[in-house]
């Protein structure tokens, strides 16, 4: 039993329905203060809805949500004073310059005109946006806009920063910049709650991860615990000769001790590996049997594979019943 003050976010039996769709269907979350918490799930799983409830933009239909002990409905104003939200869709004004956007928000947060100007300037410098500061945000690239968006959440350092898919659609360089910001914030004592579709991202950043599917938490734990439920990783093998795939499948399955699946590519196979040490031996078996390998890769399980392992169905299946969580 944790004391309430140790939790940045605590939800219990949270429900939100849109029409007949239960977008959030009884979610219990406990986010420890000072950590990065990842909410992982495919499109339409209900991630955005949960976040909008936590940012007081939506009222839950049932259940409770508390942020640092303050109820998001009864004590919404106290919650707003502790949380900053960076939404999935650019929550900055594209008809203003970057500097004006930050100065406006600074004024709305209670800084004086002079303080707002100073704060906007130092943030733009620190986040590498100084050159673009006086251009209209409408002319920014996706990465710059996202960075400004996150910067706009940090004018007053929030106790809880909520980021909705902060790196979706960003190039790897911009994605690394966002990760750097998140790490710096947590080093400074803040709590970060982020949603993502990428297991890789949750693994890189999050101390704990909740996997969400169809409005429910289907798994929760540290990245290590989650990956253990799925297996150490995925082995992908591609053969130069598709005719040898059947025998390769049999040999690999035997050597790895796990099921091997043919992929859509007629020359490719994949397997969820529980013990990476056996991979080398298994590949050697192929070579001894005279089966050449065009390429192979041992990677982290993808979100698809995590889902398959946890739910028995791939992500995005039965999309018709999903709320577009926008």
């Amino acid at each position, binding site marked *: 039993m944790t004391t309430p003050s140790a939790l940045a976010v605590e939800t219990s039996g949270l429900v939100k329905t849109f029409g007949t769709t239960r977008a959030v269907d009884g979610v219990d979350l406990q986010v420890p203060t000072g950590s990065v918490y990842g909410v992982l799930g495919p499109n339409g799983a209900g991630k955005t809805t949960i976040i909008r409830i936590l940012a007081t*933009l939506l009222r839950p239909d049932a259940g409770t949500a508390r942020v640092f002990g303050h109820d998001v409905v009864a004590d919404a104003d106290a919650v707003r004073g502790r*949380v900053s939200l960076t939404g999935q869709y650019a929550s900055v*004004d594209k008809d*203003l310059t970057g500097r004006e956007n930050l100065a406006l928000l600074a004024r*709305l947060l209670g800084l004086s005109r002079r303080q707002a100007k100073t704060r906007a300037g130092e943030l733009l410098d620190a986040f590498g946006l100084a*050159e673009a500061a006086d251009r209209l945000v409408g002319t920014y690239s996706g990465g710059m806009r996202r960075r400004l968006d996150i910067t706009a959440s940090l004018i007053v350092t929030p106790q809880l920063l909520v980021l909705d898919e902060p790196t979706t659609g960003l190039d790897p*360089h911009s994605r690394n910049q966002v990760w750097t*910001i998140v*790490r710096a914030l947590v080093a400074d004592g803040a709590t970060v709650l982020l949603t993502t579709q990428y297991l890789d991202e949750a693994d890189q950043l999050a101390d704990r991860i909740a996997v969400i599917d169809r409005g429910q938490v289907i798994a929760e734990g540290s990245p290590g615990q989650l990956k253990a439920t799925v297996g150490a990783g995925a082995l992908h093998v591609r053969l130069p000769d598709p005719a040898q795939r059947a025998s390769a499948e049999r040999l690999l399955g035997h050597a790895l001790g796990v099921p091997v699946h043919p992929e859509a590519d007629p020359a490719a196979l994949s397997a969820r590996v529980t013990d990476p040490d056996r991979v080398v031996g298994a590949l050697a078996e192929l070579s001894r049997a005279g089966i050449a390998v065009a390429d192979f890769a041992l990677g982290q399980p993808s979100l698809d594979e995590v889902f398959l392992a946890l739910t028995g169905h791939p992500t995005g299946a039965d999309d018709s019943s999903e709320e577009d969580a926008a």
Partner: protein
Amino acid sequence: MSAIPTTAPTTGSREPLQVVLSAGARPARPSALAASRAFGWRALLKLKHVPEQLTDVIGIPVIFTLGFTYLFGGALAGSTQAYLQFLLPGTLVMTVVLVTTFSGVTLNTDITAGVFDRFRSLPIWRPAPIVGPLLGDIGRYLLASTLVLALGLALGYRPDGGLVGALAAVALVLGFAFGLSWVWTALGLVLRTPTAVNNLSLLVLFPLTLASNIFVDPQTMPGWLRAFIDVNPITHVVTAARGLLAGTVTAGQVGWVVAASAALTAVFAPLTMQLYRNRR
């Protein structure tokens, strides 16, 4: 462009990023007025960056004043000068009333963009994101009124009520416009696209402005139309503005408009706020 180091800052060292993060102490929450003023400032900044949005404010008064004076003035009142003297208070009202539709369109544009979510998640006076822009809009109405009066004076219009009468007329029209704006903000929260808000508000306003005493004296119209014109609020605003500009106004005429403006605000401001709070 990328001044951010892409390696993780080690704890203990004071990276620029952390220095700037630590500097973000939370100040006292702004007052309702300060928050509204910030939104008004935003509206003016947008005006600066997207001056095209002033097209209506500048175009409508010029077209109506010039068009009606010279096209119909001679036929309707015997001379363009005599007609201008009658028409100008009407175009003043019509212009400002048509410009009010902008408030609903802006609000709808705002809420469909992501930036409104950020405003709604800030610890500020809740109505500020709606009240602030309306205060900014008063600036638009003032600009439109000034343009109409300046154009009228240049064409030879002379208000017998003098400067005081003119200022009082403008103030009265602005008050009514403020009340009417709330109708469009309510509409802006109900309808789905800015275009729909614009179309519907113009659909309401065109019959109201045409079937009024703006362009001609209703004496020659059929009885059923006169009955409508008599209850049309635009007619009452025009009558009062005409009276103030001519120095012949009665307290009842002004009182009617003040009451109507207050009633519009009393009904549609709470309705707007209710709709705003209940957005999903």
